[in-house]
């Protein structure tokens, strides 16, 4: 395992806490799951959270999807919507939020696309509309088109599955923060 951690951190909830780290994604050790029960509501008080739930599905560079909780620094994720043959992948260089514990408020945008029936994200997170505008999720209204990643071809032809969504998180927890919930 190649992890270098420098400086110090804060540890109120058993979060992984260091100011700087260098992580080998291939040998990454998931954050230990706290044993405390989930909180009913844990919205941060300073700075509005604009994020995704643990079960939201990221699309990796190879086209497979993975639960947000499984993504680590160094992973290559898809960033482009279309252009066959041009996947458009980019590396994850850090997390602006990575909170395992607690439930948080999100908005669920239900679409008419049966293959991708909904997008779940925080109210303030920016989403691309079909006309190219970038708006907060809270400002998307019925009738707006979202930019769908239609030309993804997971594993050069396999089917993409959505991760399981459980009402109160992932159970058992190790399957949520490990390879178990990757819908490969």
């Amino acid at each position, binding site marked *: 395992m190649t992890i270098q951690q420098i400086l110090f951190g804060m540890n109120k909830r058993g979060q992984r806490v260091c100011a700087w780290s260098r992580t080998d994604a291939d040998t990454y050790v998931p954050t230990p799951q706290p044993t405390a029960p989930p909180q009913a509501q844990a919205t941060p008080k300073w700075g509005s*959270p604009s994020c995704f739930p643990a079960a939201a599905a990221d699309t990796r560079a190879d086209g497979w999807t993975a639960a947000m909780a499984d993504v680590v620094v160094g992973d290559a994720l898809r960033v482009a919507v279309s252009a066959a043959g041009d996947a458009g992948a*980019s590396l994850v260089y850090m*997390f602006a939020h*990575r909170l395992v514990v607690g439930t948080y408020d999100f908005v669920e945008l239900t*679409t008419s696309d049966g293959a991708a029936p909904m997008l779940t994200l925080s109210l303030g997170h920016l989403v691309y509309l079909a006309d190219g505008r970038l708006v907060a999720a809270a400002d998307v209204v019925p009738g707006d088109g979202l930019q769908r990643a239609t030309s993804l071809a997971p594993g050069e032809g396999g089917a993409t599955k959505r991760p399981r969504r459980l009402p109160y998180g992932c159970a058992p927890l190790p399957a949520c923060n490990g390879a178990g919930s990757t819908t490969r």
Partner: protein
Amino acid sequence: MRAASRVQWRGLYNPLTLHGDLIVDGYRVSTFTSDVPSVVGAVLSAPLRALYVVTGLSTTLLEAGMDRLAPLVAAVATGVVTGAGLAVGSALRRRLE
């Protein structure tokens, strides 16, 4: 989009890509938020992106959220102000002597 509804889910994750976009739940989204204009966010995050590209170093300081960072920022600010005050006081004392 047909409808929007408020829900509660477990976990709060915001992975930042060097590009600035993501594909989540099959749709294209930004890694930025409405709190800060995307251009400003890109400028502010440029040093961290450059650091990662050049050295592979990544910070986990923000993973617990900005509210967790507030005490650290306050402590650093207090230290800076205190240090500046001591330095100014020392300089004034030297001048008076």
